[in-house]
């Protein structure tokens, strides 16, 4: 008898890609948790319930090893998984732990740490939030100043983090802290898992320019963290920051293109409804977005093909984030302009078009070229790592 916990996991050779897709689709359809509740508490329970269902049936963590509850799929099957998951419109993992900290822990954690943390993380029992950026350490993350000073088998953590999504829901905050001297830069940074409920941790919602709070700021005052909760060696946490499992993020390369395909279709329908497409200038702009949204998909296909053929994503994937960020900013701004004075009504005005989604998107997508590395930093990285241009000699040595 197959146990419930392994029902989702089978040997890849035991079925074809189509059979795998059909089985996954059937599961995601049959067990779909239904519409997203509006009430925040109900919504959280709905999300957690789904993640547990997924985990318990063996359908969580497509790129994760099986010993920690994952599916250990090949890259080709991960692509199928991401397509089906996006198609079913299901809740994503809570917090950023599964995507960012999980791979780090899998690669650098001790056996004890992996046994203790990974399964609850994947199952959604524990929500993890990232604590990297600080008020004076944004693009220059190596300038971070939150300190962790050793006190026996504990660290005493003091400092402030900012731009932390889901920190208000978090059970664990994965952070970068300074264990070296203030000048030590990347040579004195350690990677700590901090209990979000520990005394001395204060999380405050951060109201952003949209007027809502999508992020938090976190204050640490004499927070005691066991040394056993440090990942990797002391002062050597920096190389852990950009860990990923194979090319798991590229497996979803097509999904963003599919999302924007839908958004553009909605904008075109809106423009048509308002009679704006009789204007050749409007048609020209819409056609330009049509071109870009299609290229987004073609590039996703190329990236996946490159990984399947050579094991590496190729140059096209290095620029895709920048391509998408510019696209979504341009698209929302154009939508606002298209609507004229109605485009600049607030979200809550009864006469706002489509509940003000476009003007809200115009504001929200300002973050697209700031968060997770500004567009300027991305361009530097592309220039240096893909094109091989020399680094800026005025920057501190080996910073990156």
């Amino acid at each position: 008898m197959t146990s419930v916990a392994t029902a989702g996991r089978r040997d890849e050779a035991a079925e074809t890609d189509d059979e795998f897709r059909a089985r996954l689709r059937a599961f995601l359809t049959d067990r779909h948790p239904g519409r997203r509740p509006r009430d925040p508490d109900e919504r959280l329970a709905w999300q957690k319930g789904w993640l547990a269902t997924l985990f318990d049936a063996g359908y969580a963590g497509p790129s994760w090893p099986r010993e920690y509850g994952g599916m250990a799929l090949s890259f080709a099957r991960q692509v199928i998984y991401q397509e089906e998951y996006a198609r079913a419109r299901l809740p994503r993992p809570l917090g950023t732990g599964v995507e960012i900290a999980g791979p780090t822990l899998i690669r650098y954690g001790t056996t004890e740490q992996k046994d203790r943390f990974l399964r609850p993380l994947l199952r959604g029992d524990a929500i993890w939030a990232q604590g990297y950026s600080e008020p004076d350490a944004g693009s220059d993350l190596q300038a971070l100043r939150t300190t962790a000073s050793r006190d026996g088998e504990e660290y005493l953590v003091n400092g402030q983090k900012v731009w932390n999504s889901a920190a208000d829901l978090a059970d664990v905050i994965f952070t970068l802290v300074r264990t070296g001297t203030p000048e030590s830069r990347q040579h004195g940074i350690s990677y700590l898992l901090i209990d979000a409920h520990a005394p001395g941790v204060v999380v405050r919602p951060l109201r952003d320019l949209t007027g809502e709070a999508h992020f938090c700021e976190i204050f640490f005052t004499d927070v005691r963290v066991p040394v056993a909760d440090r990942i990797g060696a002391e002062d050597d946490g920096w190389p852990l920051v950009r860990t990923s499992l194979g090319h798991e993020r590229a497996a979803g390369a097509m999904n963003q293109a599919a999302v924007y395909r839908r958004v553009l279709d909605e904008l075109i329908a809106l423009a048509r409804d308002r009679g704006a497409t009789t204007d050749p200038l409007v048609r020209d702009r819409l056609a330009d977005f049509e071109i870009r949204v299609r290229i987004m998909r073609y590039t996703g296909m190329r990236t996946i093909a490159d990984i399947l053929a050579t094991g590496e994503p190729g140059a096209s994937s290095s620029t895709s984030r920048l391509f998408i960020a510019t696209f979504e900013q341009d698209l929302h701004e154009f939508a606002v302009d298209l609507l004229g004075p109605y485009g600049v009504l607030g979200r809550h005005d009864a006469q706002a078009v489509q509940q003000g989604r476009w003007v809200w998107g115009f504001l929200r997508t300002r973050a697209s070229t700031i968060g997770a590395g500004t567009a300027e930093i991305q361009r530097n990285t592309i220039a240096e790592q893909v094109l091989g241009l020399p680094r800026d000699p005025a920057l501190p040595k080996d910073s990156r």
Partner: protein
Amino acid sequence: MVTGFVTPEHDQLRAAVRELLADRSPSAAVRRWMESGTGYDPEVWRLMSEQLGLHGLALPERYGGAGGSLVELGIVLEELGRALLPSPFFATVALAGQVLAASGDEAACERWLPGIADGSLTATLALAEEGGSWRPEDVATKAISVGDGWKLSGTKMFVIDGHSAELLLVVARSEAGPGLFAVDGEAPGVYRTRLDTLDLTRRLGRIELVDVPAVRVGPDGDATAFLHEVLDLALVALAAEQVGGAQTCLDAAVGHAKVRVQFDRPIGSFQAIKHKCADMLLRVEAARSAARHAAAVAEEPAERSAATVVAAAYCAEAFTFAAKENLQIHGGIGYTWEHDAHLFLRRAKSSEHLFGAPAAHRTRLAELTGIGGPR
């Protein structure tokens, strides 16, 4: 065909073409031939045909070809674009050869494709006229039925190698509508002149036709749908060539930025230059995605036209962007006659206006996808 799958055979083809052109057509040779009478190196033409079999690569086997597709031809054109090779290859193989093969006209294919496949015949496609439009619907050149054949009268403009090609495939209008006709470039009543052009590495001609004997190629009657397919083939080919040209501009700019020292440091260490290069890479890679996808779906009627105009509009502008940024990054040296930056800028801007400009392609995409359709 899945976009993006590059096989080892593709890599070998690319490497072979690149090696031949690096060896036989470096910049100095390009400059020598662009100022010559014939405009191209017949020895390179012969090697491309005899040594690498490029002419017949994407033509059907029964007419002397190798049975490849636009994907393989696209690889060749990307390399020709990279090297800025002055050659009748584009007009003969990518235009006339592909158009004949797509026509489904057995007699025409038997008569001319073997010559194109073995490199013994040069040919071209004559579409636009003095009005400057590339829409088959706008063609005014007249085709009059005379006995078993036709006689053409009118004026064709912006014809690639139009002053020299041996076989002319001419779009003309009969009483039933626009269609395609074959004309011997040396026939009586053909008056041809070479145009003075911005692009020094691709020659254009004006062709005046006065009661010239012609043979119908492809569908009888109103062949507008076929002519749109012809235009699509031309645009997919051009997009591949533009990607190659844009890649050279990027490579040249990055290469220069690494070695050019000002203020005691390579200029490529300045963010202003890095960001320009990163933006060039973004456009070159997006253009490559578009061009390769268009080539991959060229034989799928439902997808072909939209994928083609996406590539046409994006690749044209990406190439011009890359050419301008390359020149800018080179600074003063890039403004000299001796530097190649201007040759690429000339090619880029000129090819933006071959077979329709980006704005026209976007208009067509809006039509194809129903953007401007009814409420």
